[in-house]
């Protein structure tokens, strides 16, 4: 059953359209991450779900109700803000109980709910403190506690980890995921950090310029990006993208790139011969062995288990992630092998994924 349904949602500020007709179903209990660069409309979409922004056109359903014109408080949602938005003059307990007090719940109910949320988040000893007496991570937890207390149908998170330092961010990431596994409340989470998206989401929605670029499970997006944008956005270090032309020789196909190398292609690409394409290969799908791709080395970055080689092919930057230790002199030209079963080909003009005739046959 879908818990949140968005149909052809548009948002404009004056003549400027921010969202261009976004449609999205979110199933009950799922953890959905909206990810994209800043300005892609992900936060606007979340705030429209929350009722903090008006809807220009389209519909939003939460549960079975159309909530376009419903007040935020009546949407049965809870939101965690980037700045936490804790009331500075209230203690942790008061912050968490504010919504219940406004509803005039009985003191017994309020105490029970606050206690329950505090226990889930390990906040019990902090209840009498004020926000200013808490660390960033603790404030973050209080903000989540305030959301939990309300027993909402949907949790909304607006870049909740971006104000934390790197170490704490990793820790809170796991905590939020655990919390979701425990409560199983439908969650919509906005971030610009693709690692957060990959690690936390049941489903990722990649947004760009007010549109949904692609949606799917994290590894689906990783293994089969539908556009160059998704290919470059998901994964770190990001996918190598080399411009070239599809060529054929002796019944095999390849892409000829700027430095003259012909990079291998699997399958039958006969209908694309002569076409300009973008050849995508992830850094970890390149290895030592054959000389498929000759790279001029710029920098070597050893991390212990892996060695990252940064270099150029023609004018394009290339990253190679080797599972072995290696050392090359700068400006040396080194040949690498490409795992041709993991090659992604995109139309150079439209940026959309191209599939070989044999892949299509497999898919059907």
């Amino acid at each position, binding site marked *: 059953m879908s818990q949140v349904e968005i149909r052809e949602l548009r948002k404009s500020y004056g003549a400027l359209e921010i969202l261009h007709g976004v449609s999205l179903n979110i199933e009950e209990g799922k953890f959905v991450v909206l990810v994209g660069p800043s300005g892609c409309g992900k936060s606007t979409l979340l705030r429209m779900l929350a009722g903090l922004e008006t809807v220009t056109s389209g519909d939003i359903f939460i549960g079975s109700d159309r909530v376009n014109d419903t007040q935020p408080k009546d949407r049965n949602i809870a939101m965690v*803000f980037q*700045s936490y938005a804790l009331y500075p003059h209230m203690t942790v307990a008061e912050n968490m109980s504010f919504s219940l007090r406004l509803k005039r719940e009985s003191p017994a109910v309020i105490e029970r709910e606050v206690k329950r949320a505090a226990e889930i988040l390990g906040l019990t000893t902090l209840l009498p403190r004020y926000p200013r007496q808490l660390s960033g991570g603790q404030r973050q937890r209080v903000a989540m506690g305030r959301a939990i207390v309300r027993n909402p149908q949907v949790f909304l998170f607006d870049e909740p980890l971006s104000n934390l330092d790197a170490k704490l961010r990793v820790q809170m990431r796991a905590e939020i995921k655990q919390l979701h596994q425990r409560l199983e409340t439908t969650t919509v989470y906005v971030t610009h950090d693709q690692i957060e998206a990959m690690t936390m989401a049941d489903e990722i929605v990649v947004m760009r310029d007010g549109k949904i670029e692609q949606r799917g499970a994290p590894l689906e997006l990783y293994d089969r990006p539908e556009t160059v944008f998704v290919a470059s956005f998901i994964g770190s270090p990001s996918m190598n993208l080399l411009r070239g032309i599809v060529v054929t020789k002796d019944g095999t196909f390849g892409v000829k790139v700027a430095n003259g190398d012909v990079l291998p292609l699997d399958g039958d690409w006969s209908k694309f011969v002569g076409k300009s394409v973008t050849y995508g290969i992830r850094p970890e799908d390149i290895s030592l062995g054959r000389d498929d791709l000759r790279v001029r080395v710029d920098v070597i970055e050893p991390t212990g288990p892996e060695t990252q080689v940064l270099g150029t092919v023609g004018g394009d930057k290339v990253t190679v992630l080797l599972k072995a230790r290696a050392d090359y002199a700068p400006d040396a030209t080194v040949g690498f092998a490409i795992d041709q079963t993991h090659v992604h080909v995109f139309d150079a003009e439209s940026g959309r994924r191209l599939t070989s005739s044999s892949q299509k046959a497999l898919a059907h």
Partner: protein
Amino acid sequence: MSLVAERAPYAGRSSVRQWWNNGNALPYLLLLPSAVVIGVVILIPFFEALQYSFTNSSLLEVGKFVGLDNYTKLLSSKDFWNAFRFSVIFALANVIGCYILGLGLALLMNMEMPFRGFFRVALLLPWIIPSVVSIVSWRWMVADHNAVFNQIIQLFGGRPIFFLSNNDWAQFIVVLIKIWRSFPFMMLSLLAALQGIDRSLYEAAALDGATKWKAFWHVTLPQIRDVSIVLCLLMTIWSVNDFDTPFLLTQGGPANSTENFVLLAYKYTFARNDLGTGAAISFVTLIILMVFIVIMLRRQREA
């Protein structure tokens, strides 16, 4: 040997020199100019006035020490209690009036609306215009039966009101014009405080189920509480010490009904040539204000 001999004369001063060379003297040196200015402008007159308040001095001669005579005479005089009554009314009405008007306008100015920039500047005018100009203009508008206000009243068939000759009206007008002159400061300071409030607090409150009014009560007011207390304290001090408004409008009349402590001190000192009592009034005012401020600040800290 020669080195020791050369150093010997400075041995006694070496600690002072060291203190100086270490830069320890610098903060004191930097504070010196303001300490001198404060001493000359505030402390000397302060103690001189304190000294006068125990004498029967006039403007022409330093009188004899008379102990607490000036104070006892003052506390048993009708004038003093009359000035006390009006000072309290004046300060209280001004603080309350300014706060309500200032906060209301600050809330309005904090909203998106057309011509907001114009209104923000326009509403500051009463505060910017020199007091003599603004108060005298007001007096022309209310003073006699041909003044603008009375012409308007007569236009609608009413009888002219002698605003500054009737005790109640005069007190009302003095307070009203004081509010008109001082609300912009309150408005500006509260507007700054309002703009400092994190907007996401209101969004969180909206999600938590707060109406506009509840958000004002539970978010806005607590957030501007500290600023409000300081502003009200300042307003109180400035009201109690206000000379311009009552002096330029009514000179304390009619029948001393708009006479506050400052006017009373002025009257004793310059009209009655009784410097001792005038100084004593200043000190009683100071003590009353200090007690009030200490109580308020202590309550603020407790809350």
